[in-house]
């Protein structure tokens, strides 16, 4: 064998060993292919079996080898096989999802953060009386049964523009909450105006306190609206409803539509010293 040929053969063998044991670069692979053309008796997998057997041999001789296939990987492999067979079910998918979630710490942390955020929003939502419109009839009943200082007045129309209006208001100073129930108020267009609740607390405030805004989107049956005072109420003595600009106002100049009770009790007016 000529010297040049010998050098080429050694280079080919080195590349074949690399091919069997580590990654080849694009350049090395091109060089390997051209050398295989020179020595057609060699194949790209020339050392594959030798290295594979040697790998197993070293593995068996390694007394300190204690690598064990983790159980969750075993389950993932079985799941992958089921997928390949088209036999995976929704239950398998959920199982796989949960396993992935709990065996990848970053996923578990992300889920924890999401749950915490979700829970926080839920708590805020729950506490946010204005926006919490779920289970209102039940909540109203519960308050009516449990509040010690419950006051309840029927609504009275203060304008001839309205048709017959029915309903009432319940309120508890201790709980700082209440509900109005109304049937007969005309539907409003929220883009143009909204109904606003006012709470009369003359002992603490000279002006009515904003009790929140609401919309009437149906007339076929009574609606229940939670009262959401913007300021702490010491002793509510009366309530009113006006129609205001969208979002409501701080101080109203609009006519009263409904009041409860019909007239504000006389003993709640400030005493005028003579």
């Amino acid at each position, binding site marked *: 064998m000529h010297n040049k040929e010998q050098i080429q053969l050694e280079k080919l063998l080195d590349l074949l060993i690399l091919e069997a044991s*580590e990654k080849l670069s694009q350049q090395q692979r091109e060089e390997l292919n051209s050398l295989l053309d020179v020595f057609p008796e060699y194949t790209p997998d020339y050392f*594959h079996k*030798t290295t*594979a*057997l*040697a790998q197993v041999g070293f593995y068996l001789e390694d*007394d300190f*080898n204690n690598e064990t296939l983790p159980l969750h990987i075993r389950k993932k*492999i079985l799941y992958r096989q089921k997928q390949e067979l088209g036999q995976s079910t929704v239950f398998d998918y959920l199982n796989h999802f949960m396993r992935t979630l709990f065996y990848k710490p970053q996923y578990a942390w992300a889920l924890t953060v999401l749950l915490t955020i979700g829970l926080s929003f839920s708590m805020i939502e729950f506490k946010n009386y204005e926006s919490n419109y779920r289970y209102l009839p039940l909540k109203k009943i519960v308050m009516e049964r449990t509040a010690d200082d419950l006051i309840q007045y029927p609504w009275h129309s203060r304008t001839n523009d309205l048709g017959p209006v029915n309903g009432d208001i319940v309120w508890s100073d201790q709980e700082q909450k209440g509900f109005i129930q109304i049937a007969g108020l005309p539907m409003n267009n929220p883009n143009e105006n909204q109904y606003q609740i006012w709470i009369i607390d003359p002992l603490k405030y000279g002006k009515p306190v904003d009790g929140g805004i609401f919309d009437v989107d149906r007339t076929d049956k009574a609606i229940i609206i939670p009262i959401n005072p913007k300021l702490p109420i010491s002793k509510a003595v009366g309530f009113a409803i006006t129609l205001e600009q969208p979002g409501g106002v701080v101080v109203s100049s609009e006519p009263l539509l409904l009041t409860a009770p019909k007239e504000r009790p006389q003993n709640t007016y400030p005493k005028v010293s003579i």
Partner: protein
Amino acid sequence: MSQSVGNKTEARKEYLLLMSTDNTDSILKLIAKGEDRAFNLLIEKYGNLVWSIGRKFLYKESDVEDAVQEVFIAIWKAAEKFDHTKASEVTFISMIARRRFIDYLRKVSKYRNLQSIDEDNGQELFKESILNESTDLQLIKDAIGTLEIEDQELLKLSIYQGYSHSEIAKLLNIPLGTVKTRIRRNLIKLKGLFDIKQQATVIELNNA
């Protein structure tokens, strides 16, 4: 000390498990026949081996996890091509595993993979191999035993531990050329021993 004894016991169990394959009813044959529990048995028997090889090749745990799944699916798909007269089960599995891990190594290293396991589909892998299952493992153990201790260590670092030649040169503080020459010389020697055994088996089979 007890740790070492424990590891040796486990290694022995592993060895016996791998040596216990019955040629006529190998797990791969059972998979090819469509036996329900065969794939489970495959993972049971070769899971630790494949996982161990993967851990040597790939550094990131998530890469090993993904690659090991791919290896088992590849073995499962190639099971019907397994021929015990041409290669032992453990050889077949180890070859597919190594090829897959090297492919994966290329993929995660952003090297273009020109010849993946999918292309040769397992068909060309064993065309030269007609080693007998029961003698394969003993053969490789004996063959490695004929090498000098230093050469065994070099091969172990390269083939088993997955170090590149340049990494070995740095690790052992010897020239890269020396590493290449010694690994080349010893792999050729091992291959020669296998080829002699292969020819003997051919004669044995022809005389049978």
